[in-house]
C-alpha cells in the first residue's frame, strides 16, 4: 500500500557508515573494535525443504548431535513461544506476555498442515506476540493484540498486492482459511520465481 522507495540505504549513507566504521576500527588495538556492516540477505523460511517439514512429525523434539541440538521449524517456533511464558524460569521477567496469547499463537502454528512453511515468532516490548513469514517475494504476519484479537496482513512484494483481515476468530484457522490466505500467497510466489 505504500509507495516503496527501495529498502537499501543510499550510496551516501553507506559510504558514511563504512567511513565511520573504518575510523572506529582504525584504533591502536590489533583487534578491530567493530565488525563491518553485514549486508547478507536473511535466510528465508519460505524455502525450507518440504521433506524436512513433512518428516518432522515423527521426529523427537530435540535431536542431539554431539553437543549441538537441532530443532524442526515447528518445534523451534513452539520453543520460542514457550520462552515467552511468564512462568518460564528462564524467561524475560521484564516483558509480560499473556499465556492465553501464547496458546493462541501455538494453536495457529499447530493448525498449519504438514509441509507448510513455519512462521518466525516475535513479540514487542509490551509482550504482544506475533508470527511472520518473509522471503524476497512475499511477506505475511499474524498479530495477537493485547486483548487477544487476531489480525492478518500480507503483501506480495512483486505486485504490491496487500491483504488485511482483522478480528479473526481462532476457530477460523482451518485448512480453508490457510489455503485462502497463505497458500495462494505462496503459490503466487512460486509462480513468480518460476
Amino acid at each position, binding site marked *: 500500500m505504500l*509507495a516503496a522507495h527501495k529498502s537499501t540505504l543510499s550510496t551516501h549513507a553507506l559510504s558514511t557508515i563504512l567511513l565511520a566504521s573504518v575510523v572506529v576500527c582504525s584504533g591502536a588495538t590489533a583487534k578491530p573494535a567493530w565488525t563491518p556492516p553485514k549486508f547478507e540477505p536473511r535466510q528465508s523460511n519460505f524455502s525450507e525443504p518440504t521433506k524436512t517439514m513433512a518428516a518432522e512429525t515423527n521426529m523427537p523434539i530435540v535431536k542431539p548431535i554431539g553437543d549441538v541440538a537441532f530443532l524442526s521449524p515447528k518445534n523451534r517456533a513452539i520453543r520460542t513461544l514457550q520462552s515467552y511464558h511468564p512462568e518460564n524460569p528462564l524467561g524475560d521477567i521484564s516483558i509480560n506476555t499473556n499465556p492465553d496469547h501464547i496458546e493462541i499463537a501455538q494453536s495457529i502454528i499447530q493448525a498449519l498442515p504438514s509441509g507448510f512453511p513455519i512462521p518466525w515468532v*516475535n513479540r514487542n516490548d509490551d509482550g504482544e506476540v506475533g508470527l511472520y513469514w518473509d522471503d524476497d517475494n512475499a511477506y505475511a504476519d499474524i498479530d495477537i493484540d493485547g486483548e487477544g484479537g487476531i489480525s492478518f496482513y500480507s503483501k506480495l512484494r512483486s505486485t504490491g498486492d496487500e491483504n488485511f483481515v482483522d478480528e479473526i476468530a481462532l476457530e477460523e484457522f482451518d485448512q480453508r482459511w490457510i489455503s485462502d490466505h497463505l497458500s495462494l500467497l505462496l503459490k503466487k510466489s512460486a509462480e513468480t520465481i518460476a
Partner: protein
Amino acid sequence: MQLIEFFEQNTEGKKFKLLATKSEAELIALEKLTASRNSPGPVDDDEVVFHQILDPTNLTESRDGLSPKSFDTATGIGMSVNRLKYATLNEMKVLGEARAAAFNANFPENPQPRSFWGLVPIDVAVVRSLVSKVTNTRGLFVFDTALPNDISHADIAQLTRDERRFRAVRLELYDIVKGSAFRCE
C-alpha cells in the same frame, strides 16, 4: 502547538499516539521544529541515524537483525535512534552499553540480562519518503528528541491511525533495515 512543551509534558507513555491525531500537513510542519531544549536542531533529510539493538530483545529468532514487532515501539514511545551528525559509532556503542547496564540494574534477577548487540543504520530521507498509495500521506516522521545526556537522540514515529496502514508502514520500516544491522563487539 509548541513542540518542546508537548514533548516535555508527554515524556512517558504513548506520546506519539497523541501526535497521530494531527493531519499530515501539521506533522510535517512540526517535524521542522525543535522537539527538545537539548537538541542541536531538527533532523535533516540527508542525515543517517542509527538504532541501537539490545540482545535478546527484538532480535529475530535467527539473531541477525530486528523482527517486525520490534518496530511497534515507533507507534507509542517512539523508536529511539542516534544521529551520526552528533555522535560517533563508538559513542553510540557506549550509549547502548549504558542502556543495557541500566536495564540490568533495574532487573538484577532477570534470567535474560540485556547486552548491547549492535546498530542498524537508517536513511532519514528514505523513512520520510514512504507514502501511502491509498491516502497519499506519509506514515513515518522523525523528531529531534535530544536528551540531556545525549544530544544525538531522535525518534522515528509511526503516525498512522488505522491498523491496516500501521501494518503496511511497519513492513516498510522492517524492509528498510533488513540486512543492514551489524554487530558491534
